[in-house]
């Protein structure tokens, strides 16, 4: 199931289990992400995909197993070391999570002001550069509440890029957007990750976006990865769960179990 690995992975998850009380959300996951890969994690809503991203940046701790960023075990790091890893990781949230009391400029400046010793001019230069990358230079002085959903996503993406991260995590980047805006965001993700040579992990259940963005895909089902490979393998998958999910059919093994109704596997 694990892809062919011929270089040292940037990120690896080894037999990761996560339980919330009686509920098992992730059940012994094993995954390696290579540098500059664009890995798409697919799966139904409430299946633990976003939870997986929170494990990667150490906001959640696995019940069992290890999460490694290069050679460092994320779940064993102290706060100071963990923050160093977090500064190397950009996270783009489903609803952007821009700080509502700060302007677009201040949202982008925040990580640089708090985590680096960059001067005001340098910070301003980076802000302008990143806003130009996402074609949002004209909204620099606006507040997040004045922006549309698509614009917020772009600003969220620009904020994730300001510290030149090695890894960018995307939580449902095209959710809630119209098809055109969704395509624009997808293209932006591709061009920016290629431009910055960053590795990216994208969580989505939007199949068009998944096939457009991913260089590799995995499917999470009942707390486990049931498929792993390049996008073309998923289009022709013989796995009934994968085939049903990709085609968006209502009849098939996913609906039969009824487990998805509660969102998590018991």
């Amino acid at each position: 199931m694990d892809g062919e690995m011929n270089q040292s992975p940037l990120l690896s998850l080894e037999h990761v289990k996560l339980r919330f009380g009686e509920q098992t959300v992730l059940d012994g996951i094993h995954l390696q992400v290579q540098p500059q890969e664009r890995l798409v994690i697919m799966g139904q809503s409430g299946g633990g995909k976003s939870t997986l991203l929170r494990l990667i940046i150490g906001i959640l701790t696995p019940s069992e197993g290890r999460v490694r960023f290069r050679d460092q075990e994320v779940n064993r790091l102290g706060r100071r070391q963990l923050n160093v890893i977090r500064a190397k990781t950009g996270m783009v949230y489903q609803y952007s999570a821009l700080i509502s009391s700060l302007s677009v400029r201040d949202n982008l400046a925040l990580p640089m002001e708090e985590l680096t010793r960059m001067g005001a001019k340098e910070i301003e230069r980076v802000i302008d550069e990143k806003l130009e990358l996402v074609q949002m230079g004209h909204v620099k002085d606006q507040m997040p509440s004045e922006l549309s959903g698509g614009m917020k996503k772009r600003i969220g993406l620009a904020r994730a890029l300001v510290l030149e991260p090695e890894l960018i995590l995307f939580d449902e980047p095209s959710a809630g957007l119209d098809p055109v805006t969704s395509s624009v965001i997808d293209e932006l993700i591709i061009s920016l990750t290629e431009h910055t040579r960053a590795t990216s992990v994208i969580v989505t259940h939007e199949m068009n976006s998944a096939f457009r963005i991913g260089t590799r895909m995995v499917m999470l089902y009942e707390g486990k990865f049931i498929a792993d490979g390049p996008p073309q393998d998923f289009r022709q998958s013989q796995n009934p769960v994968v085939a049903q999910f990709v085609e968006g059919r209502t009849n098939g093994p996913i609906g039969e179990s009824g487990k998805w109704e509660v969102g998590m596997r018991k």
Partner: protein
Amino acid sequence: MPDLPGLGILRRALAQVSSIVWLLIGMGGEIGDHLARGRLPFRRAVLFEQTARTGVGSVPLVGMVSFFLGLTMALLTGYELRTFGMERLVPELVATAFCRELGPLMTGIVLAARIGAAYTAELGTMTVSEEVEAIEAMGIGPLRFLVGPKLVAIVLLMPCLVVISNVAALIGGAVISITTLNIALSYFVDLVREGLLVKDVIAGIIKSLMFGLIVGLVACYRGLTVKGGAAGVGAATTSSVVTSITTVIAADSVFNILLVKI
């Protein structure tokens, strides 16, 4: 074995108290990390903004409430003491009661309602919209960045507000003393200076620091632990105000018992 009645409530309360202590320790750790990197714990502008909001913004309310309370206290006690020809005790009574007890208590309650509620609502909204998590995910300590300036502002500004509360109450007391008890202003001031002890003022200041810490910690803790969207923010805000006021009154009682024993 079935739980004894109230044991569950006690267990939950202890769990929350320990979580609040951990919040304080976590914030201290994050501030320590930042200082170790040769950085100031908070931005000066953010701290000034919080102190203005907490302190300057609360002056009219604290002053007004204390003025009317001082006025009422002088009026009611004055009428009773006049019967015995002891109305000259009114200035001392108002001064001691406010400096030692009512000033810190009233200011604590007013700040719990005005500032504690605002802190909880602000942090709660940020929590449900994943802003707090985004700050954490960037590697910026959210406790240092969000809680720190609020806590420092409320703890440092509480004694200042208590002084304003005491002065406002004394003005209220003076108005009644002059107009209805025939006590001249200079005599009122002399009676206050004679009756007021330094230890009463110090006790009030210590209480005010303690109440500021309680209100700030409870409000921030409730805000950061919000669950359930907008309804959750509303419930947490109510809970924050109720818990803060109850805790402030309980802490005041404990402090008074200890002070009497000492």
